[in-house]
């Protein structure tokens, strides 16, 4: 049986090898990183253009939007980098190659996800960090040690929320042949995460806060740092949302893995 320390060590060993192998394709790495760079800034570009014509977006200034956006970029990086293999579940399931993941003395989700490490996601992470520093300087945010710890905790749980949404959507592949659209929809929703939740009311606000809580990926946690006085009690639940959602996703994964009995005679 493997302990947590075993898993961590194993992960480093596997990924070190994987990265070494991928680095051989240098051109691919550079081109994809450039592509990643552009695609990750696209929505920010939209905000930038809009905020040239109006003073603020639902009461949020450009710099505050940049902060939220940077938070979002960092928060979705773990999903991008560590869980990229989720996109291929439907291929493995269809071709029967998914079976091999049952045979090692390893947790299956760990084993499956460890097979891919998306290097270009690092570009997004670094740009996000740079933007976050830039925005906090411009906004004159006071980074006390407590605040930094809070930042790390909220980033961690925001990452869990994003991971959970995508992985849960990818599990549709265990039951349905034409499962890609579910993933596609989940991916699209990600785009709306940096939007200020205050622009929504009624059913939309409800869905994005309680059902598919993309609000917890960037907007709600960011409030802790941007407008700490105005923070609603909801925000302090962020870590719970992240952990709870991941538990649900893991349950879905387990159900999917058990129901899949594979092809072949």
């Amino acid at each position, binding site marked *: *049986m493997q302990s947590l320390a075993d898993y961590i060590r*194993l992960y480093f060993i596997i990924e070190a090898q*994987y990265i070494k192998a991928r680095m051989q394709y240098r051109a691919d790495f550079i081109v994809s990183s450039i592509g990643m760079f552009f695609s990750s800034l696209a929505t920010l570009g939209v905000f930038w253009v809009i905020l040239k014509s109006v003073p603020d977006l639902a009461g949020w200034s450009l710099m505050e939007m940049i902060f939220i956006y940077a938070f979002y970029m960092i928060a979705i990086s773990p999903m991008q980098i560590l869980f990229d293999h989720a996109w291929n579940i439907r291929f493995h399931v269809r071709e029967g*190659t998914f079976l*091999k993941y*049952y045979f090692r*003395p390893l947790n299956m989700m760990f084993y499956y996800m460890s097979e891919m490490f998306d290097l270009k996601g690092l570009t997004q992470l670094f740009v996000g960090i740079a933007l976050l520093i830039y925005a906090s300087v411009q906004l004159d945010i006071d980074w006390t040690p407590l605040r930094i710890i809070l930042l790390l905790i909220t980033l961690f749980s925001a990452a869990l929320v994003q991971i959970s949404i995508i992985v849960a959507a990818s599990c549709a592949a265990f039951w349905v042949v034409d499962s890609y659209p579910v993933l596609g929809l989940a991916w699209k929703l990600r785009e709306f995460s940096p939007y200020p939740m205050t622009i929504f009311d009624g059913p939309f606000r409800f869905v994005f806060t309680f059902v598919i809580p993309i609000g917890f990926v960037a907007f709600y946690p960011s409030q802790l740092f941007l407008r700490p006085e105005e923070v609603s009690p909801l925000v302090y639940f962020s870590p719970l949302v992240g952990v709870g959602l991941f538990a649900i996703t893991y349950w879905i994964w387990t159900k999917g893995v058990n129901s899949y*009995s594979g092809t072949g005679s």
Partner: protein
Amino acid sequence: MSLIHIQNLTKHFKILNRREGLSGAFRDLFSGNYRTVEAVAGISFDIEAGEIVGYIGPNGAGKSTTIKMMTGILKPTGGVIQVNSLAPYDNRIRQAQIMGVVFGQRTQLWWDLPVIESFKILKEIYKVDQKMFDRHMDMFNELVGLKTLYSQQVRTLSLGQRMLCDITASFLHNPQVVFLDEPTIGLDISVKAKIRSLIKGLNREHNTTIILTTHDLGDVEALCQRIIIIDKGKILYDGDIKRVNALFGAYRTLKLQIDNFTESTLQQLKRSLTDCFGMKHGITIAETEEFWTDVTIDQARTPLSDVLSLVMNNFPVIDVRILEISMENVVQKVYDGALG
């Protein structure tokens, strides 16, 4: 206590009877009309440590369902199954430590990495200590020259090389039982021989139990002392291979493509073969795919060459193929009570 103990094992699947058309698909969503398929219908056997057992049967016989239950993927519907005294399904991770699995077609190694790196990762996963690792890697090198492949990426290997790597990798952690599924499929005869001797060598080294599922009877002949035949979820035969071998080893199937083949040609063919050799001498004729006729011959009683020259002299034969007896035929004969 045997290593693998199976008693009255059953596995049922619920299959949806899909209704036709769009409205049917819609109704299916609400009230599923299921039928039960008995993939495994009550089988029992015990396997001891060190045995090499051939587990054969036609497609859809329940082979892979049984294997999946032994490896802990599928939960049985009923009966008892224990591997090393534990129920596989409830102890997947723990059981995985004492098992090795190899699929004929798909590799379990890391596709983009050099071969040696896959072994090193497996060493970490299975917690193989350095001494055993070195000893095993040396043994693998002795048996099949593995060192020459160390630095090659798995994706660049030929099918045969990959199989050698996959099989040796499955023995790295000194498992108690290894499941080999179609280990020689798609390989040419020299590589097959190499793989068979590898498997024998590995079995000898640590007295590892090996369960071999294959459609290649040559594998079975070369490796197995014991053979279990399964069909339609039930065991047809479980015993010494010598009996089966005696019965089928000498069989050959002659596939003929005869020009202008009609029903009357079939009758003529039957008559001339009966006249010449007597049908009781182990010859059966069947029309299989379009344009092909199968003549199955027991060489122990009637030489193939005689049958072939008779047919070629009297019928307009366009094409000929000679095959060893097929799995389907073996099972059919067992059904017919050939083994009693």
